[in-house]
């Protein structure tokens, strides 16, 4: 039989081109990923590795989806918020009831949210995990609103999500102020979203690993060399099961692992600023949130800034010490608009110094390139990730470092296309690692393709950098509001 056009039908999971692609091809490729990973009310991070809805993934995905379908972007956040607990906690996974338990570990029968979390306010359905992830959601909701204010108003989007997002932040600022210093603590390495970061090594060493009574599903589709070790996994399981045994009650749980993470808290500041915008927009009290953002910014610097190292550190609340680790989370406070100028200067110096300069990708490695724990392929111990690059790019723009922001934006877009929208990238070789067709990689590349300045603009290094002081979101979002 002769070959016809029919034989060349393009399958849904066709890998994106490996060569550098033009922006039209990139947009098409990113849209394919997001349309292909959509499940009807939300998006899976990856068809192969992550078959449910993840909290901070969904926030980043919504930021990209808003360019593809504002309605889907709103639904993405709404479906996540449907899993919110009565205590305000937004769980890090909302499980898809149609997916068999064996497809992912820990599955609903491990977390047992509807039963073990009942007293803490877990919903009867859907099943969720009991821990949280970084609060990117308010920022995402505001950006989704800005993408189409008329559609947002028509669906009553802000009015519906604002109370839930406020409750989420209230949970973090009350139940999770475990150190009494006014910052939110994480109680599990999965909570700051950087599961096996060396920042947790010392705190995790206090945890007795769970016996080998669980079966990891992540290794079915992931290369063991790219994933956390079995020993780490045993400790993750131990921490989670202890939390579950305490009914996910933060006041009762004896937290062996409790840290204030700079990335997590920086996103909380940005989220509070977004809530301020939303509240103002709805004629409510935005000043309360703006005040909280300013206060959080002060505490962030007071409690987590390491002036000698020029980077933010996590604070271990069990030992009440700053963790001696230089990682990407320490750069993420760049997204905070009200950061003191000297801190911003030091952070940008650190970003471009030997610890994070990775010419093979132009992205930012997750771990100190010069440190003893650096591992170029293992998850959050070295690989460069696209969501952190997106946040750093946003931070650079927030503080007027437009030229540096542009180079990072170009790198993010190029690497996303070149690697087939990889989950993460080896910063030494530029090789894509982890899952491909990864949703937030596609979403954030799409976002920068839509909202970023044109990368072919002449370099603006000589141009004066505008000072942006005080709390407030960057100019681009003000423009989005006025559209």
């Amino acid at each position, binding site marked *: *039989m*002769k070959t*016809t*056009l*029919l034989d*060349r*039908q*393009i399958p*849904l999971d066709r890998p994106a081109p490996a060569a550098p692609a033009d922006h039209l091809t990139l*947009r*098409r*490729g990113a*849209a*394919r990923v997001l*349309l*292909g990973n*959509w499940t*009807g009310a939300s998006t899976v991070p990856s068809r192969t590795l992550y078959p449910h809805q993840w909290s901070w993934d969904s926030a980043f995905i919504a930021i990209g989806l808003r360019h*593809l*379908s*504002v*309605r*889907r972007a709103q639904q993405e956040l709404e479906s996540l918020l449907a899993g919110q607990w009565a205590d305000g906690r937004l769980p890090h996974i909302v499980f898809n009831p149609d997916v068999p338990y064996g497809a992912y570990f820990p599955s609903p029968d491990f977390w047992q949210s509807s039963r073990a979390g009942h007293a803490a306010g877990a919903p009867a359905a859907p099943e969720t995990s009991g821990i949280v992830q970084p609060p990117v959601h308010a920022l995402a909701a505001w950006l989704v609103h800005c993408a189409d204010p008329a559609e947002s108003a028509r669906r009553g989007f802000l009015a519906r999500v604002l109370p839930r997002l406020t409750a989420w932040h209230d949970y973090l600022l009350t139940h999770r102020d475990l150190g009494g210093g006014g910052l939110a603590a994480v109680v599990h390495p999965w909570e700051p979203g950087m599961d096996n970061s060396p920042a947790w090594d010392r705190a995790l060493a206090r945890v007795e690993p769970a016996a080998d009574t669980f079966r990891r599903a992540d290794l079915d589709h992931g290369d063991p060399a790219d994933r956390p070790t079995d020993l780490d996994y045993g400790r993750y399981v131990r921490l989670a099961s202890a939390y579950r045994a305490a009914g996910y009650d933060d006041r009762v749980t004896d937290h062996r692992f409790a840290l204030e993470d700079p990335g997590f808290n920086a996103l909380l500041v940005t989220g509070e600023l977004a809530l301020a915008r939303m509240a103002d927009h709805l004629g409510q009290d935005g000043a309360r949130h703006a005040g909280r953002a300013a206060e959080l910014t002060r505490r962030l610097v007071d409690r987590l800034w390491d002036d000698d190292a020029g980077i933010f550190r996590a604070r271990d609340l069990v030992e009440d010490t700053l963790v001696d680790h230089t990682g990407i989370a320490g750069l993420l406070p760049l997204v905070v608009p009200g950061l003191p100028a000297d801190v911003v200067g030091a952070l940008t110096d650190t970003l471009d110094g030997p610890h994070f300069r990775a010419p093979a990708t132009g992205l930012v490695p997750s771990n100190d390139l010069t440190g003893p724990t650096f591992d170029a392929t293992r998850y959050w111990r070295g690989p460069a990730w696209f969501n952190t690059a997106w946040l750093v790019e946003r931070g650079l723009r927030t503080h007027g470092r437009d030229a540096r922001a542009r180079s990072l934006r170009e790198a993010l877009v190029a690497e996303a296309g070149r690697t087939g929208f990889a989950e993460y990238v080896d910063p030494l070789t530029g090789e894509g690692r982890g899952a491909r067709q990864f949703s937030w990689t596609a979403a954030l590349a799409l976002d920068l393709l839509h909202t970023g300045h044109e990368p072919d603009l002449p370099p603006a290094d000589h141009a004066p950098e505008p000072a942006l002081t005080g709390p407030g979101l960057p100019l681009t979002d003000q423009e989005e509001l006025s559209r």
Partner: protein
Amino acid sequence: MLKTAVQEQLLPGDTLQAKWEFAQQAGYDAIELRGKGDLHFASRLDELKQARKDGVVMPTVCVDMLHFLGAFDEDLRRDALVQMKSQLTVIAEIGGTGAQTPASYGMFSRRLPPFEPPRSEAEDREILLAGLTELGEHARREGVTLFLEPLNRYEDHMVNRLDQAADLIRATGLDSIRIGIDSYHMNIEESDPAAAILAHAGLIGHAQVSDSNRFQPGAGHLDWRAWLTALHAIGYDGHLALECRLTGDPEEAVRSVPAFLKRSGA
């Protein structure tokens, strides 16, 4: 930006030239013709040729009859094939790309009494493959494409979804047959219209647009951004042809569509 077209009966004006004037001012890139039976479309050849000379862009024709290639009645079925072949020939002669037809329309619905059609599924398939092959081979000889349009379950009982059309087209082995998608029918039949477009990317040849309520885009509640993004994602380079009923002032309704589609990501 995807190109737009509008079916001729939706345009004011007595001639194609007058209709084209209106269409251009409203922002359309082309007119989609309608092909009536009794070889009426062929009888318009002089009119169509003159319109083409006058610059009217007419890439496609959509059949406008009450019997089709999947008709139960053998005489009607044979006539439908004669009509469609003629329409393919005419659209080729005026430099167009193809003609669109459903398997049937208004003949039978499994959702309405008496629920069971007089012909078995196997017989339906045999009839459709025979008709499609005959028309597809004719289209290939003419250098144009036959677009098979899935209709919703209330209008046709044989080809409702893109996967059903794709299956038939693959079975013919002809690349001169493609799916002619319609946003209104897809909204009823596809669980995820955007995903269906991606899944059948290589087989989609034409696209017609109307909203969830069969009125002009913008009058209903379709997620146009997702649908249009999917067409962009597969590199679709055909027209979005307006085939709908109109609500509100008819001329204003027709005029509103190109701008609405553009705002929605076309």
